[in-house]
């Protein structure tokens, strides 16, 4: 009787510790998340209707300084629904002027914000619809694809092809 109670207690303690460590590491250092949807195709999920979504490695150390560069792929919680997490590419950084390649407007990104767009402009909800995104919503930067095995590799921080008008 004592023995089983001890065992249960020990297992619970172990599980709680593992949970704590997982939370801490995935919040502060790095985590792995699945990519859903085709908004970043062909960089992620190049085949539509594939059952195997890409899993990507996300590093969190960039959140200390919030220093990003052009073309970085970031995950952030959606400005229109805090429960959703989006994955997009940074097109323009805080305080920059840039040309919106969809309607040729010249825009200035406000301080503390960035302009994000999906690689697949045709099916992507991004800054085109909700405007610049505050950097405070950014949850990490994507560096590698880790699953499926044939797609393992580092992510380039350049857009695959820059179409002049799309």
């Amino acid at each position, binding site marked *: 009787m004592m023995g089983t109670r001890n065992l249960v207690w020990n297992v619970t303690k172990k599980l709680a*510790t593992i949970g*704590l*460590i997982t*939370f*801490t590491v995935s*919040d*502060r250092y790095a985590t792995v998340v699945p990519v859903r949807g085709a908004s970043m195709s062909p960089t992620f999920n190049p085949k539509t209707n594939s059952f195997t979504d890409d899993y990507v490695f996300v590093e969190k150390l960039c959140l200390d*300084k*919030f220093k990003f560069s052009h073309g970085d792929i970031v995950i*952030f*919680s*959606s*400005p*229109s*629904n*805090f*429960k959703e997490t989006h994955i997009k590419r940074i097109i323009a950084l805080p305080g920059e002027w840039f040309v919106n390649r969809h309607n040729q407007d010249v825009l200035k990104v*406000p*301080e*503390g*914000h960035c302009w994000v767009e999906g690689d697949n402009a045709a099916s992507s909800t991004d800054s085109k619809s909700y405007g610049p995104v*505050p*950097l*405070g*919503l*950014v949850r990490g930067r994507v560096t590698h694809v880790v699953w499926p095995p044939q797609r393992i590799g580092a992510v380039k921080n350049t857009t695959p092809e820059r179409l002049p008008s799309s």
Partner: protein
Amino acid sequence: MPFMNYIAQWKSVAKEALDRSAIIAKFLCYLHFTGNYLCSPTHAYGPSMLPTLNIAGDVVLVEHVSPRIGKVGHGDLVLVKSPLNPNRNLTKRVVAMEGDTVTYFDPLNSEDSRIAVVPKGHVWIQGDNVYASRDSRHFGPVPYGLIRGKVFFRVWPPSSFGRLDN
């Protein structure tokens, strides 16, 4: 065999060091979890929340549970990541939620009041001291995802120790 003795001694020292660092690491994980998911102290200063919070700086407790489950509502004091600078936190009051119409006036810029509609997934935050507060009247509604926590208890100064009501 003095050599074997030596090795055994080393082993026990290494094991002890490993155990100690494991305890410290666990403790840090525990701190991270409590500070990010449950409750943490913060120092709120500046004139923007007069008369609710003092100008010299109050130490308040912030709980992080309600923002995560979407239980932040009208009149709550919240800790928000500044949309203009992700490294700064603001303490403000939620005045309106998504879909609400707010009538606000900004005595520093204009005499007459203005009307704004809070978009989906956003909140309208304002300081209690409308004369000295930079808030949604300047940078517009902020995404709900920027809310870090709900301020619910004042620890310092001791004279006003106690719950903060809405």
